[in-house]
């Protein structure tokens, strides 16, 4: 339960932090840290405009997107606290629930009959397909490394004799990239772009409004918090005292958000046809990680 509360709290501040860092970096005054969540509050209370072409899919898809991401977040260990659901192979359910969310996003965007949304959906489907192996290979490597089969067990690795900052950093690097790709941020896609032709996530929700848009945006906030928590679990040693664990958890999340903010301020986005290479590179890094683990376990 503590894990869930921590994830939800993080998801409230995370996007605001990114926005804050971006405005500081670009020398603007910028909105407050709570602005994204205030936007969601406003959206929740608005009416909805559906496209005339859309049918039932547009009406139920946002709800399922939210539901699946929320259930996926129940399986994440946070700062040493046990998640609500934990069992052998829970990461498979986690990854496939995110896939369910992606499935729903794609068909919802096609429901409007818009070519722009089709374009975004096409990219989302392809990038999602390409990044999934990276996550699984990383987890497979960690299964070999720890001999555990659940997220809680696997991310128990910093703790006792298994603690290794180098591994933690590599895992964080891979997970960070996966977060960027899952949420379509710079350098894959610029959420602040104004041209529909080059969007990925933003273009898919062009015809989603009000309560539905709020749900989808909040799901993406949760995704940030979820991956941030995994990164924190990979970096923080488990044998710290409760206070230190919480402090380091918050620090890791803030650094993660700040990193994304700085990346978005100082980095340009890729050309669209370079994205596949970028994603495959991340996959290859996680294959390398797997090979390194084989070496350390003397399996080679």
């Amino acid at each position, binding site marked *: 339960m503590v894990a869930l509360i921590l994830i939800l709290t993080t998801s409230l501040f995370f996007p605001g932090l990114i926005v804050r860092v971006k405005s500081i970096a670009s020398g603007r005054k910028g909105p407050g840290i709570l602005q994204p969540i205030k936007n969601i509050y406003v959206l929740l*209370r*608005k*009416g909805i*405009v*559906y*496209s*005339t*072409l859309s*049918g039932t899919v547009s009406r139920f898809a946002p*709800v*399922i997107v*939210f*539901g*699946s991401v*929320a*259930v996926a977040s129940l*399986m994440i260990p946070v700062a040493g606290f046990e998640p609500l*659901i934990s*069992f*052998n*192979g*829970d990461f*498979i*359910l986690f990854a*496939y*629930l995110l*896939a*369910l969310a992606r*499935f729903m996003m*794609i*068909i919802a965007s*096609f*429901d*409007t*009959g818009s*070519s*722009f949304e089709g*374009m975004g*959906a*096409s990219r989302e*489907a*392809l990038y*999602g*397909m390409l990044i*999934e*192996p990276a996550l*699984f*290979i990383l987890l*497979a490597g960690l299964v070999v490394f720890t*001999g555990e*089969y659940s997220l809680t067990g696997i991310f128990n690795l910093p703790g006792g004799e298994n603690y290794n900052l180098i591994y933690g950093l590599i895992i964080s690097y891979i997970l960070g990239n996966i977060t960027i790709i899952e949420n379509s941020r710079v350098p894959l896609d610029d959420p602040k772009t104004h041209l529909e032709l080059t969007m990925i996530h933003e273009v898919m929700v*062009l*015809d989603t409004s*009000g*309560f539905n848009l709020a749900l989808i945006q909040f799901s993406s906030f949760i995704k940030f918090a979820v991956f941030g928590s995994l990164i924190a679990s990979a970096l923080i040693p488990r044998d710290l005292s409760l206070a230190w664990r919480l402090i380091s958890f918050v620090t890791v999340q803030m650094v993660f958000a700040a990193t994304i903010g700085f990346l978005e301020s100082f980095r340009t986005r890729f050309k669209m046809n370079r994205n596949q290479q970028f994603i495959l590179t991340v996959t290859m890094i996680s294959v390398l990680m*797997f090979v390194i683990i*084989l070496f350390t*376990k003397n*399996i*080679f």
Partner: protein
Amino acid sequence: MSVVKNELMSYLLIILCVTSFLILLPSRNASRIVAGITVFAIAAFSSWLAIDTLITAFSGSEPSTRSVEGLIPSLFVIDPLSAFFILIINFTMISGYIYSLDYLKEYIIRKPPVWVKIHYLALVWLQVSMVILPMLRNGFWFLTAWELMTLSSFILVIFDFDEKGTLKAGLSYLVQMHVGMLFLLLAFALSSAGQDTVSFDNLGNWFRDNRNWPMFLLFFIGFGLKAGFFVLHTWLPDAHPAAPSHVSGIMSGVMIKLGIYGILRVTTYLQGDFAVIGAAVIIISAITGVYGVMMAILQHDIKKLLAYHSIENIGIIGLGIGLGIFGTAIGNNIVAAAGYAGALLHTLNHSLFKSLLFYSAGSVISQVHTRNIEKTGGIMKFMPLTAWAFLIGAIAISGIPPFNGFISEFLIYTSMFHGLGNNEFYSVVLIFISIFSLVLIGGLALLCFTKVFSVVFLGQPRSEYKPAPVEAGKMMIIAKLLPVIPVVLIGLLPFLFVKPVLSIAQSAFVPATDTGSAIIMKPMYYIGIASAGLIALIIVAILLRKLMLRKRVITTGPTWGCGYSAVDQRQQYTATSFVQEYASLTNPVIKTGYSKIHYGDDEIFPGPRDFHTHSDDFIRSRIINKPADFMVRILKKGAVFQTGKLQHYVLYVLLFMVLIFILTYLKII
């Protein structure tokens, strides 16, 4: 052990022969009704045998095989593995028959009535042959039933024989099946040489005395041709589009699974070489799965696309079997049991969602009269129930929770990840390959099914429908509802279904251990909880939305067009454009051909243009077409003798006699 009386089986055969004639009676309705009664009767009888076997096998100390005394003593033997396949076959046969009632309606008017009757006759005999196949151990009778299955399904496939390409697809199927038959014949003959009877049961002795993998390979090729493993799959993408939709559903759902049954049956007798065989099966299956779905994504013909997905799913089942064999090799019961159980459950699951998808696709095709998905669109507004059925099937086949496809893939993943615990380089690399391929298959299947569902059912029609499509008939809806129920139930309450499947797998392949079963079963309860949580959250969110929107206005407006308001319905995103980036990525492996005519310099007002994309199965063009063309070229050279003139033939006879005379004179013959 309760034994079915001798007479019962023989009565059954007599009744079957009588009903076969009744189907051929002149009355149009009679054939349908008699066929229906027969299908239900066979299903009821064999399912009763199967369920009875399962109950006795798992209730106590009873031995887990039983024989049905038939014309020849202990010809029909049922063990839990056969019982499982019999149940699957009957379920899909019933839904297929119900579907055919509506589907064949338009043909009854168009076609000569005798074709419809022969179609139903073939349907009944297909069921008979499929149901008795898992019960037969005797090689001779097994191959007879196998041949009966091939012939009756061939007749079902060529139902639309007056359409272009149907007969060719049917013949290609028939020829390839007989190549497979040849391998099976060879395998049976070799393994039973010197024995009194030709039977599966001789395999135990054979495998004990000889190397295991060559014989397994023979069986694998024979059965793999039916199942559609990589390189042997080329008949599938031709035969399924040619066949009527219920036949595609039955063939893809259950008939190709008998190939899987055959492989599993042979596997039960294996004595050694587990590591080699397991590794080979895993690698072949990984290639099968990835290749199947990679090809599927590029298809525009919805039934061809589904056929390629059958190949993909055979790959997933094969991964399970391979992991099972490999688990035995490394002596890990959890890996073995989870692998086999995953394979069995995926066999069941695939029969459910694939028949569901074929039925839904068939309903759409019978309304819009095209299989090309680029010409459809917006069907959900005309046929909401069919669309929902297809959506459920699409989510299930992509292996996404909360439906059944996820459960079987989860079992296979369980097997893989437990296999990683065996810290040997060889096994870790093998498992790595299998994990990578299964993840890739999942992602690609999602890409593929979001494409089909979106393009066919969502948005606007891409061409005008004449007449406007209407919702499928009652029987079609019932036929789709039948598989939908278990698809949802297995997904939501996996522990109820995984337990018996696991017991079947353990009884056939691995000794059951309490700890092993508990480790495999425990996640199922959690998945059930998570699915319940998902549904609860969805309901809560919907209620919350209702509450928040009580006093708000819900309006509709035109789709955002970025300032361009004259959007034509043909400018919607198409299936080709959806997968264009993917196609450019896979171009080194699968060539996508574009055919278009460029604008000339002198064309000031260009006329309409055609643009086509097509992707060829390079396996078919290399392995089937090229050798066949080569043969034809050589044989054509021999055709100079075939002049068609009587005088020449008389001359040949004369020359032949002279030749014989000379050879005899020289004492050569």
